[in-house]
Each structure stands twice: as structure tokens, then as C-alpha cells.
């Protein structure tokens, strides 16, 4: 479902409008542009690019936007500061812990100031302490105004959400708002 929401896949039925635009018939370049500007991805396995530094990883979506290097710098540093990784900007992903890598991945998702953050099991590859830290970060972002759509199998983390949609074998079995 996150793939459909993130315009990586197309639904076999139904319709999906993003910011009032029906996305089903968008071309590949249009989808890429929307992914770049409106959506931020956070993956379970972080998916940082090993050859790039922390800074370059966070900068990546902005380079696809055609933004000037000097302009990008402000966005990148701001995103890294927000997740508390500013001091690790020159490190490679392999030099970071799992929790730190995921915080960088969150920074990358945030950097372009997207309309929505899609998080696919963001704590799935982390131990409980790091998982809690990432959830705290996401909550802080949400409190700051970010819209976050997160998929998780962990009920502890699902309880952080304002709205929880429970899927079972591909069907919605529960849809509730937090009290």
C-alpha cells in the first residue's frame, strides 16, 4: 500500500488522488517529480547509499530537484540538525549504528520538505532502544506539523498514531482515531 501511496506502484482497482490530482495516469517523469517534491520515504532497511556520505545521502533528493548546491546546503544541514545528526555529516553510513542510519534516512526524507512522509517499518531493523528513539523523532516531527503515514507490525509503535488502519490479509479490519 505504501508503494501505491508513494507512486512506486499503481493500484489494480480504485482511485488515488494526491493533493487533488488523480495519479493513475501520470507519466513516469511526472511521478518521479511528485515523489521528489511531495513525498519523503523512510525504509525499514534505511536504504542509504553506501558510497555517499551522510551529507550526500540527505542531499540526494534535492539534487534531483535541480536545486543549486549553495541552496541545498541549507536544507541538508537543517534536516540533519532536526534529527540530531549534524555532527556526522561527513561520515559514511557504514560508520554509523542502525539507529543513527535510520535518523539519517529520516533526515533525507525531510530534507525536501515533502507534504507527506511514508515510513515502511522504520523500526523494523532496530533494537528497542533505537526504535524508541526513532519513534520519538517521528512524533516530534509530527508535532511540528509533518504528515506521517507509517506501516508497522509493532502495536507499541502503532499507538503513537492519531489514526490507525488495521489491515489483515490485505483487507481493512479496523480504522480508528486516537482518543
Amino acid at each position, binding site marked *: 500500500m505504501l*508503494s501505491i501511496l*508513494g507512486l*512506486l*506502484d499503481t493500484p489494480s482497482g480504485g482511485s488515488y488522488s494526491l493533493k487533488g490530482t488523480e495519479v493513475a495516469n501520470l507519466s*513516469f*517523469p511526472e511521478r*518521479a*517529480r511528485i*515523489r*521528489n*517534491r511531495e513525498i519523503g*520515504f523512510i*525504509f525499514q532497511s534505511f*536504504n542509504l*547509499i*553506501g*558510497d555517499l556520505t551522510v551529507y550526500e545521502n540527505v542531499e*540526494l*533528493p534535492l539534487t*534531483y*530537484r535541480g536545486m543549486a548546491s549553495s541552496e541545498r546546503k541549507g536544507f541538508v544541514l537543517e534536516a540533519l540538525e532536526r534529527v540530531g545528526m549534524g555532527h556526522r555529516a561527513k561520515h559514511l553510513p557504514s560508520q554509523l549504528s542502525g539507529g543513527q542510519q535510520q535518523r539519517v534516512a529520516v533526515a*533525507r526524507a525531510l530534507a525536501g520538505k515533502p507534504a507527506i512522509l511514508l515510513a515502511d517499518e522504520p523500526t523494523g531493523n532496530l533494537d528497542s532502544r533505537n526504535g524508541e528513539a526513532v519513534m520519538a523523532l517521528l512524533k516530534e516531527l509530527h508535532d511540528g506539523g509533518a504528515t506521517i503515514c507509517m506501516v508497522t507490525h509493532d502495536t507499541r509503535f502503532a499507538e503513537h498514531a492519531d489514526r490507525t488502519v488495521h489491515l489483515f490479509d490485505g483487507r481493512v479490519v479496523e480504522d480508528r482515531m486516537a482518543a
Partner: protein
Amino acid sequence: MLVKTPGFTAIAVLAIALGIGASTTMFSAINALLLRPMPYIQDQDRLVAISEFFTKEPGHDNGTAFPDYLEWKKNVTTLDGLAAMDEATFIVTGGDKPERYLGGLISADAFSFMGVQPILGRLFRTEEDDLNAAPVALIGYHVWQEHFAGDKGVVGKTIPINGKQVTVIGVMPKGWRFPEVCDIWMPLQFEEKDHPRGNFFLDCVGKVKKGVSIEQARAEMEAITARIAAQHPDTNTGVSVHVTSYREESVRNFKTLTLLVMGAVLFVHLIACANVANLLLARGATRSKEIGIRLALGASRRQIIRQLLCESLVLGMVGSALGLLLAVWGVDLMLTALPNEVPYWIRFDFDWRVFSFALGAGALSSVLFGLVPAFQASNPQLVDALKEGGRTGAGGAKGQRMRNSLVVAEVALALVLLIGAGLMMRSFRYLQRTDIGMDPSRTLTFRVGLPEAQFVDNEAAPRFFAQLIPKLAALPGVEAAGATTSLPAQGNIGISAFILDGEAEPKQLQDARNMRQLMVTPGYFQTTRVPLLRGRDFTVADTKDAPRVCLIDDDGARAWFPNDDPIGHQLRFLDKAGEPPNWSTIVGIVRPVVYERVTKLTKIPAVYFPHEQVPSRFMSVMVRTKTDPAKFANLVRNTVLAVNKDLPIYRVLTMDEVVAQSFWDRRFFGTLFTIFAGLALFLASLGIYGVMAYSVRQRTQEIGVRMALGAQTGDVLRLVTGQGLRLILTGLVIGFVSAFFLAQLLAGSLHGISAHDPPSFTLVPVILFLVGLAACYLPARAAMRLDPMDALRYE
């Protein structure tokens, strides 16, 4: 494991086979030229080639004067034997039709000290060198089989050779055609009065005594030669002697180019090895899980390396076997490309050296391409490797760096080869375009030799050609006919010393004026379309009784008469000591013609004499036709036989073929270089493609992430091709610098261009860059077509 991955195994074996096949083909040439002993000759490391030379021209061997040879033979103590030889054409009659054979007049003791024995009869006796000895001949195996049908009673038979009755005293063994392609040998039987001092023309061969070095023999020969020069300053001042290994001297013209092509082939082989190493590195990465399991089950790293090296060795050996088969085909192809008859001792057989080379190269290559991948693959991060889809080990950054380095090396090696091939081909094209001063189109040429016994008096030869040439010119479809002692561009021409009227004879031969001397019949200049610039051409009126005349070329006119009109001036030869001076008057000036081989141009002007006034029994006849000249071969042969039924014609070639033969070696080696460079280009582009395709597979997930983050197809294209182009450009820079220095090795074989020829050094890198770009584009296109969903799921 190799059987389970047939695709990988097939590609690896093919790459190795191509490398081994090419290098074994060239090694068989090296073996034939430089390593394999010359057949039948005993102690051949003691055999030396000997030639006199003018010290002011140390690079040019003159040959040896007969009196100097006799003096050496009498005085030398460091040689076991010394022989002189002069090539000769032998016409054997008495059979169904006359046969012409190339043969040699050779010192009677030559074959004895070389250690070769006849299979029938005996060798020459020393006294058979005497002028009055009965004429005897040794015949080659080929003549024995062809002319005498292998008759064992041939020894003692008398046969007409060059019109003289000669007794056959022996049959030489099969394959013996010393010094190169001779089939009949007769004793030298020269007299000093016919071959005076200063007439350098004999080929000499000697054998140094056991325990004596070539240097010692050279020192003694130099001392004797210096003594001769002191005693005969008029002819021998500034004359010294070269004494070199006979084998070295025999391969002098080809050694450098052969070794250069062998170097080129080794480059191709290295590229093939780099490709296989890349394949093995990639395969090691995909096998990290299997290797992880083996290590987890207790295998030591050494055992894993051994297993992987064994697999490489199997690849190497199978590749060697296939490469040997390719080499058999390659050698056949190479032999068909050789236009000239190959000297008897150059044999491209697959002997133990060639087999050992192929197997050794296969084994060495196995280690070369197998060792690093084996070390890398045997060292995976165990935990990661055992995880589903673990891609550590050789798939990591270290493995990628190694693969990238190999591609850079491949591109660099390929560029060096391609630039080399570019230089050779541009030089070849220059030779092709060389203006030889005459029109070679639609012209048939052949050689006729008139036996001395049949054509005894001085007028016999001119009489024969005076009959033949008009008959040929009158043939239907023939425009013109003429004859000359030397064909243009053939290199079969000597230098003669002469003086002009009003000049004193020089005290020393080395100070004399030099000319290329040609005897031609009327019709020669019309046939060759060499324009007469001034004066008149020869006519039938220029007979032996008419005043002696000659024509000179424009180079001669400028060099010898810078401020004067040459017409009316006279010149005469110097090399007929004791004879009354024969002055010839210059009656015309013609355009210069190249008579040397096109690869060995010199600026020695030519002087033409009427054949009637300066007769020669060996002439090349030229016939200009209205249509394809090759179709006139039978017609002209029958015309010659109609004039004299005992005269065979030989070396029947079109003039275009004569010109092409003039630089056949450059074309041959240039073609070889180009084939190997093409192979290198193919293998290098395959290498680039392989690495980029593998990289795209490795980076599939990364590409998916980039797409998820908004990368457009153009971004992906730039990402993949950018990586490839960085490797290609690095390889090009390294290759360019290497080629800049290595091209110097080719400098001596290039004509009309410099070793740093700008078109070769600019165009070739651009071509390689474009081919490399295409090799990058295919994997890049595959990356652009990746579905981001699939890419993100890819493990």
C-alpha cells in the same frame, strides 16, 4: 561448479581461447624465426654471416668481392669453414618442357662444414671449385621428385642445365633449400678476372671454430680486411667486414616487427585475462553464500583458495586446448597471407615448444586471472554472507575497486594496441599511395633468363629480345611491350660506380659517383608510361655498332648537372678494370622511377642503357594490355616458346602485384596488428560491458532508492554511464601516455608519418571512447528500465 554454470564457463573459456589462440599463433612465428633450429645444419650457433661494407655506410652490407673471399679463406684461423655463394637461375631442359629453378653457385666445401649430407650420392669435392673441373650439380629433393620422378638412379646422370651438360652427383634431403629457396647447387667455379676486386656481390657464410667466439672471429676478419684495404686502396679503402650470427642476420628484417606483434598479442592476452578475472570476481561475489557455508562447515581458507584456483586451472587448460585449435587455423591464415616463398628453414610446425607455450600460457593465465578473485572470494564476512542475499566478500567495495582497475587496464592496453594499429595502417596507406614514377596498371611482367651455353656471343641476347618484344607488342589486346633488367619497386637492382666526362677517376671506389644502372629495350618507356622530359628515347637504331647512348633520370640531371644541360655529356662505368673505357652519351632525360622497394627508398639516380649496347641475359619483360593483364599469361608464355622452345618464363606477375610485394611485410604486420587490435577492442568493450552490467545488478536496489527519491531516467543514465566513463577516461589517459612512449618502438617501421602521428593519436582514442560509451549505454539502458518497486525489493 563450472558445469553448473555453463554460460559463465563458455564465456571464460572463449576469452582464454582467443587470448591463447592469438598468442600461440604469434609464438609459432617467433619459434619458426628465432627459436627452432635450422634443419640439417650442425652446430648452427657457430654459423656466421659475413659481408663487406663501406665504413661510411655501416648499415648497408655490400656483399663480398671474390678476391677478398679468397684472401680471407687463405688467412683466417678462427673459422672451421668459409663459403661464398651467388644466386643463380638454372633452366633444366631435356624433359617435356623446360623448367626454371632457383639455385646457387656455392663453394664446394660449404655443405661439408655445415654438416648436411645428401640422401643419395655425394657432396662436392674441393677440387670441383676449379674452373676446369667437370660440371657437377647437387639437386634438391623437390627437383628429384618433380623432374626425375624420384629415380634412384639419378646420380651419375647428365642433364642439360642452362644449356650445358652437367652430371648430377647427389640429391639433398627433403626440405633442404639453403640459403632460402634454392633447388639446385653447382660449385662456384669463379675466376678473379671475371669478378675483380671492388665488385661486392657474394654472400658469405662461415663456421667459427669450437671454443672461439663470434667476436674473436670478427676481430680476425677485420684485421685481414684492413690488410687487404692497405694492399688495394683503390678498391678497398673504407671497406670493413660484418661478422654476425647467421640466424640473427637471416631474421634481421623481421625480428623487430615480429617481436612487436608478439607484444601486441600479449596485450590482447592480458585483456582476455582481465576479462576472465572480472568474471571470476563477479562470480565470487555471487558465490559468497556458498563459500560462507563451506567456511562455516570447517573448510580452511587455503582449501577454498585451492578449490577456486583448481577451477581457474581447468578453465585455463580447456581454454589452452581450444586456443591451440584456433592457433592451427591462425597459422594457416598467416601463411596464406605471406605472398613470398618462405625460406626453407622457417617452419611453422607445432612442435614441443609451441605446445609447451600454449599449456604454460594457459597455466600462468589461470594463476593470473584466478589468484586475486580466489583470495577475495575466500574472505567473505561470514555472518553477512550466510544471510539470505548476502553480497559481501568480492562484491564489496574492494571487489568493485579491483574490477574497476581491471577495466581501466583493459582500456589502456586496448588504446596502446589501437594506436599502434592506426600508425601501421596509416603508414601502409602512405606506401600504397607512393608514386613510383610509372603507371603499374594493366601491365603483365615476367622474367626470362637466357642460358649462357645457348646464348654464347654478346649479340645473342639482344637478338632474342629484338625478336620477342615486337611479337609481344603485336599480340591482340597488347598496347606496348618492353624489357628491363630490373622492374620498378622490386628492389632487385644494384649500384654501379661511374664518372662523367671531364672528371678524373677517383682514387678510391668509395668516393665515386653512384647510379642505378638499367638496360632496357626500345618500348620500355612507352610500356611503363614513364614520360621523356627532354631529348629522345632509345630506338632500334641504337645498336652495338651505333654510338653508345644513355638516358638519365631527372634526379640525376639535377644532381650531376646542376648548372649545365646534361644532354650531350658523357659517362662511363668504373667497375670494368682493364677494359677500354666505354663512354655513353646522354641523349635524353626521363622522369625518375622508384626501383628500390618502396619501404627502402634511396635517392640514387638511374641511368638507362640500350640493351643492344649493354646486353644482359636476364631480363624482366613488361607487357601493357588493354584488359586484365593476368589473362595474358599463357599468351605471352607461348610467344616466348615460339621464339625459343627451351625458355621457360617465371615470376609471372602483374605490375600491381610487384608493387604490392614491395611492401608486403608492412601490409602483413599491419594487418596482424589491426586484427589483434580489433580483438583487443572487442575484448575491452566486452570487459566494460561486463563490469557495468554487473555494477547495475549490484546497484539495483540503490537505483530503486534513487528513483523513489525522485530520480528521472536521465539521472539514472548519467549515474551508470558516468561511472563507466570515469573508468574509460582513466584508461584512455594511461593508454595515451603509454602509447606515446611505446610508439617509438614502431618508429623504424613507419613510412611517411611520425611515431606520434596526430590523426592516430586523436582519432583512435575517440573511437575507443565511443565504443566504450556504447558498452556503458547498454547496462545504463537496462537500469533506466528498472521498475522502482522491483528494484527496492531486489536482494
